[in-house]
């Protein structure tokens, strides 16, 4: 019953999104929703490793940028291939990066993994800055195709792509959350040593988790150059991206797949409103303050608070 409701929900959202591209004519909506959905994919990706498995990743910006720069590389090497090629290749590249870091550091305590992800982000940034082929420190201008079949403008097509990516990420995250793998990941999060003793293949599961996280981050980054049309290392590797990716699940709740979805809608909406009405610097401050506020006051996030509230009311009845 629940499964059906989930899949019906996915299809309804997809159809509603497609219908939206035909109805709405103000392009601002597409840009705004694109930003929120991108945030959602990154939050979901971060949560697979951070929330389900309990390993903190500070290098979200690095994975995201690796996805974006895979697109840039393909764009230059293959002379402008379709966007979908990048959406398929970027997750493979970023998944492999995730797997590599996992192999290097996941046998150690979680703290070392967290620091290593930060290290990888900086190393990737240094590589890109020194790599003239993809534009180096100066950046790379991205010419988007004028015409695209079935859609009135390119942003509508990008909007559809990110919508499908988001739904895909939700499906993957929900599967990992509720399947046997998810139970294993939760066991690692709660007590890794005990899990290992009970025969949970911890290293294998952690590697799966890291790889999926990397791949989804890369997927979120793949359409980014088309969206922003000018890619340069400093803003693509921005710390704001990493903070956002952590803030989304922390606000929404880290225990279930639903948490980052709720978190992205809340945080993304606040950000869009603040950026438009006040300023983008203040927007960054708000992300930081909201993040720290949630971690200290409500570590279980919005979905967790709601669940506690519901349980309490049920008990009273």
């Amino acid at each position: 019953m629940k499964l059906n409701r989930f899949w019906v929900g996915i299809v309804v959202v997809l159809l509603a999104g497609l219908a939206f591209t035909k109805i709405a004519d103000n392009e601002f909506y597409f840009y705004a929703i694109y930003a929120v959905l991108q945030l959602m994919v990154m939050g979901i990706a971060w949560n697979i490793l951070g929330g389900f498995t309990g390993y903190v990743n500070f290098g979200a910006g690095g994975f995201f940028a690796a996805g974006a720069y895979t697109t840039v590389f393909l764009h230059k090497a293959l002379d402008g291939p379709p966007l979908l090629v990048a959406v398929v290749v970027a997750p493979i590249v970023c998944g492999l990066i995730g797997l590599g870091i996992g192999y290097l550091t996941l046998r150690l305590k979680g703290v070392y993994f967290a620091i290593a992800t930060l290290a990888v982000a900086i190393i990737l940034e240094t590589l890109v800055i020194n790599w003239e082929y993809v534009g180096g420190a100066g950046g790379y201008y991205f010419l988007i195709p004028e015409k695209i079949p079935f859609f009135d403008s390119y942003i509508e097509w990008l909007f559809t792509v990110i919508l499908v990516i988001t739904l895909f990420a939700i499906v993957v995250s929900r599967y990992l959350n509720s399947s046997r793998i998810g139970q294993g990941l939760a066991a690692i999060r709660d007590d890794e040593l005990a899990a290992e003793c009970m025969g949970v293949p911890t290293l294998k599961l952690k590697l799966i988790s890291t790889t999926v996280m990397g791949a989804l981050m890369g997927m979120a980054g793949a359409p980014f150059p088309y969206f922003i049309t000018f890619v340069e290392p400093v803003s693509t590797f921005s710390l704001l991206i990493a903070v956002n990716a952590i803030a989304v699940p922390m606000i929404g709740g880290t225990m279930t797949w639903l948490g980052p979805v709720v978190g992205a809608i809340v945080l993304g909406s606040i950000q869009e409103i603040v950026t438009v009405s006040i300023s983008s610097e203040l927007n960054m401050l708000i992300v930081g303050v909201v993040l720290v506020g949630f971690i200290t006051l409500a570590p279980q996030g919005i979905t967790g608070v709601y669940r506690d509230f519901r349980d309490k009311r049920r008990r009273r009845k």
Partner: protein
Amino acid sequence: MFELFVNAVVAGVLLGGFYAAVALGLSIVFGRLDIVNIAHPAFVIIGSYVAFIMNERYMLDPILSSLIFLPVFFLLGVGMYRLYYVCFERTGQESLSGLAYFFGIMFIIEVLLILYYGVDYRNVQAPYIGETLFLGFLGLPYRMLVPFITAAILTGLVYLYLSKTFLGRAILAVSQDRLALQLMGANPVRVKQWAFGIGIATAAVAGALLIIIQPIEPSVGRLYIGRVFAIVILGGMGSISGTFFAALIIGIAESLVATFIGPSWAPAVAFGLLLVTLAVRPQGLFGRAG
């Protein structure tokens, strides 16, 4: 070629000494207390801005003003630890939420500095900045030499404090066996609070040294995250002398890379060394095996 090499190594040693000052506080906090304070470099940047403001308004020497502000930074550290303890350590959530907490703090500090002072590079005035001491073909700029000497003195003082005084030994004890310390009638939370305060206080001095060495802007601190963690881990987690030598190694490596390959590659050196260390010898160069 030989002269260039020797100059690069000497510059690396001077740079490394300064790195030791930045890593010192983290060596206590991360190495001894097991608190992953990623925001440490952000506190160093606050130290730099304090030195900048005092220098601009009252023409105060940056190192002198950092010494005046030591108690303020100490109290700041105590406050930070109290919040951390109440929210995370007591409830056993330090691994996930605690990390994100310091990450958030770092981000907030950076954004606040940008909001108040913008992203312009700031520097300080002092008589020794700009002068160079020549020993044969060896050039020792005072803006590197002064921080090196200050950092060496600071490291020595912290080393003596931790190994000779009662409280210093208590800090060592809390990192080795918390329960035993409790049984001896000492309060581990208060000892940790004290140690965290000292850790942040060293950031005040490190910040002053940083702004003597180079002009700074709010996001400079981020580059130091990799450096300081690489140094602390390479130095064997909490060993003060190990931290100092590891800092020299990182400084020399960066200086050589900057001289012979190109300055734009230098930031990757520390992080690369860190990754290699984590993969090959996670207990660090100077740590005990196992």
